[in-house]
């Protein structure tokens, strides 16, 4: 760095080369020396710069900004400027000072659209990293919560924040995540999806091995189990690691409602998973290969519906499934008002008209519709299932029930062979861990969840005291109803 403000300013200006939003405010100091404040218009808050930096400097009063430090290279200065901070050069100093003046516009905290709950917290992450870390801190008021920031992407310089609870998460896990993050050498990280692809264990399978969520309470829950999370600046989706298959069927809602109801819902989700995965394939296999297994009356209905339809059942099912995939994709991408038009055209016009014209049979439409509805039950796994469904349909149409079974077995073998950050993907189903099944297919009451999942190797294995089951013998003595 140079000794004079002018030289330093020239050096920084040379980096930004007259960018439209680059602002260099030169001023004179009371002692006659020159100074310059540089910042990016729009990223920095002009109020803070005016009231708490420029005014005090010019009037020879101390600067009152929360975060400030010294910088000794021009490169670092340009980095902090890009973060929305303000750098001040003064004559006679070969260092610069920076003051935190971040004040860029960001979205308000709102309810996440992908994970809505009936009961439970409704706030969701935003695109701003600082807001997100604050939301997480508010959930976990413990000094043990570590947040380690690093920069990824040589051009985007995205801040990535690794969060974990020091006294719970396994140090080996944290080191492994750090190692994988260090390996990333790419020019752009535009969202958490970018990071996910660089650190996941199974890059080519359709099943995800890194979880994502928009909800700080979900992240808090995962951290408390011994997982770690990655918040990426610019995305409302934080990543959680390790991610196990059973997490696809867990919803934050489960812990807000009664255990029995939650268990029922979980079973529904698991059944829906199989329905959406295998129903079209099973239908084709039954109709084309094993009609003996269909009850006679049902067979009549199917037979009468398929009277006069031009295509064989496998093709009919495949076409309807394809139409559904297109409709779904169209519905997601379109703005809301147009989305309604899609559902009307899709559901009414195409479904109804296709049946009436005798192009497809009603049972196929019912099967595909049911399969589609079931696919929305577990949204995190539905992307992978959408692919697998086609594979099963192909096997079911060529080999019947044998093929469907073969496909399901292959999927099971694939799942059982996968790992996520050193944890078997199907844990605790395979390898079987009976004690930990309480939070898998069913949801046992809170007071029974005494231990953290052992597969995560938490440092602190115990979650709660030994006798936490509520046992309030009798009522209130003054009411006279004590037992």
């Amino acid at each position, binding site marked *: 760095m140079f000794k004079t403000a002018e030289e330093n300013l020239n050096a920084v200006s040379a980096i930004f080369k007259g960018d439209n939003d680059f602002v260099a405010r030169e001023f004179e100091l009371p002692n006659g020396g020159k100074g310059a404040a540089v910042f990016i218009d729009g990223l920095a808050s002009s109020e803070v710069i005016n009231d708490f930096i420029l005014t005090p400097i010019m009037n020879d009063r101390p600067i009152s900004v929360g975060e400030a430090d010294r910088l000794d290279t021009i490169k670092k200065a340009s980095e902090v400027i890009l973060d929305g901070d303000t750098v001040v050069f003064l004559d006679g100093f070969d260092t610069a000072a920076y003051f935190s003046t971040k004040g860029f516009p960001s979205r308000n905290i709102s309810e996440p659209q992908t994970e809505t709950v009936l009961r439970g917290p409704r706030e969701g992450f935003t695109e701003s990293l600082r807001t997100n870390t604050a939301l997480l801190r508010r959930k976990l008021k413990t000094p043990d919560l570590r947040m380690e920031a690093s920069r990824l992407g040589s051009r985007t310089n995205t801040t990535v924040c690794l969060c974990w609870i020091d006294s719970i998460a396994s140090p080996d896990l944290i080191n492994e995540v750090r190692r994988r993050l260090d390996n990333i050498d790419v020019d752009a990280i535009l969202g958490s999806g970018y990071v996910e692809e660089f650190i996941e264990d199974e890059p080519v399978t359709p099943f995800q091995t890194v979880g994502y969520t928009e909800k700080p309470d979900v992240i808090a829950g995962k951290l408390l189990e011994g997982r770690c999370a990655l918040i990426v600046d610019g995305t409302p989706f934080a990543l959680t690691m390790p991610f196990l298959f059973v997490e696809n069927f867990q919803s934050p809602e489960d812990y807000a409602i009664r255990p029995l109801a939650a268990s029922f819902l979980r079973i529904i989700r698991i059944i829906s998973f199989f329905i959406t995965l295998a129903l079209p394939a099973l239908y084709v296999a039954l109709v084309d290969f094993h009609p003996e297994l269909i009850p006679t009356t049902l067979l009549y209905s199917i037979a009468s519906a*398929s009277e006069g339809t031009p295509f064989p059942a496998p093709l009919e099912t495949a076409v309807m499934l394809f139409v559904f995939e297109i409709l779904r994709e169209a519905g997601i991408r379109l703005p809301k008002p147009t989305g309604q038009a899609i559902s009307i055209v899709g559901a009414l016009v195409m479904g109804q008209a296709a049946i009436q014209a005798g192009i497809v049979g009603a049972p196929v439409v019912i099967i595909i519709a049911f399969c589609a509805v079931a696919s929305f039950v577990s949204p995190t796994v539905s992307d992978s299932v959408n692919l697998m469904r086609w594979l099963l349909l192909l096997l079911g149409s060529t080999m019947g029930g044998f093929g469907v079974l073969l496909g399901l077995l292959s999927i099971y073998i694939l799942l059982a062979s996968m790992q996520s950050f050193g944890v078997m993907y199907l844990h605790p189903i395979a390898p079987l861990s009976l004690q930990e099944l309480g939070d898998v297919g069913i949801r046992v009451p809170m007071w029974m969840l005494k231990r953290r999942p052992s597969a995560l190797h938490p440092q602190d294995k115990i979650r709660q005291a030994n006798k936490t089951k509520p046992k309030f013998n009798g009522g209130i003595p003054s009411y006279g109803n004590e037992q």
Partner: protein
Amino acid sequence: MKKVLRILCAAVLLSIFLFSFGGCWSADEINTKAIIMGISVDFAEDGEKYLVTAQIAVPSQLKSDSAGSEKAYINAAAEGAGIQATLHEFESSLSRKIYTGHTELIIFSEEVAKSGLSPVLDYFYRSSEARFSVPIIIAEGKAADLLDTKVDLEKMPVSRILGILANHGSDVIMSQTTMGDLLREMVTKNSATTLALFSTADERPAMNKAAVIKGDKMIGSLSIEQQHYELLVNGEYEEGIIVCKINDDKVVSFRITKCVTEQDLKYENGEFSVDIDIYITAQISGVTFGGEEYTTEARKEIEQILHDFVTDRIMEVLQITKDMNADTVGLCEMLYRKYPRESKELLENWDENYKNFPINVMVSAKLTATGAVQERIK
């Protein structure tokens, strides 16, 4: 590179193997199949070939919103030396492939039944499509006529007959002998069983007798009432109605609510005998005589009536089956299982020995209720 090649080879080999295990060539679209609901077997006019009639469902007429003006079935008939031959015959005249996987009823004419069922049933036992739970019935006269009777609430004659068979209701109790049961009886030595015997009157199917089948041949028939008592002895009677007509004025009818039959085979001093203990629990469902109130004595009296009536009928039925040489109780099988060595001699000439085999029937009748009223309404 080598690894990729290896995986590729494995995938290709695996798919070749798998697709040859079960491939798409065994797929059949439903709308290319003629779904056979019921099959009837008669002798053709020359007396040697079989005349097989199949009731084929017309699915478009079975739709709930179809006008119903046309029949929901067609009957196709063909002659041939056996079922397989006739089924092939169908395919040369029908637009669709025949499919027997959903066949719900098999009807034999009395004539065919008397000459032996096994040549026909053999096809079904070997077929991978046919179900073993298909009921088998015998038709008086021409079996094909039963498939052409009028329909009532159902849309097909087969469904109507099945409905009648399934009515294990108040007064019609019939053993539903299926293809599987019959096979079991056929391979059991000296055993006899009963099948429902239907007749066609006014184009309506009616079940009024039971055919007695020994081996694979029909050897006689019982009336429906007699068949009740045959079931009672075998422990297959659970509930039903028994009407005791003592004379023209005195009639009492019972609703049987529970029936337990215990068969006890004994071997004492070189003599075999069987004790059949039948415990009947009944309610009065109608009575035309008796006192004002059902006192203990009155109840006892009525219980005695039931006891005597049932015992008489059972002895009568047993005599009939003995005359027919039909071991419907399954004594031969019981003897063979319990005393294989001791009964060897007896079983060698079972047909003769069965006639003289001592069967002791002990009936115990118990009245649990007198219906919803306490006394007789005059």
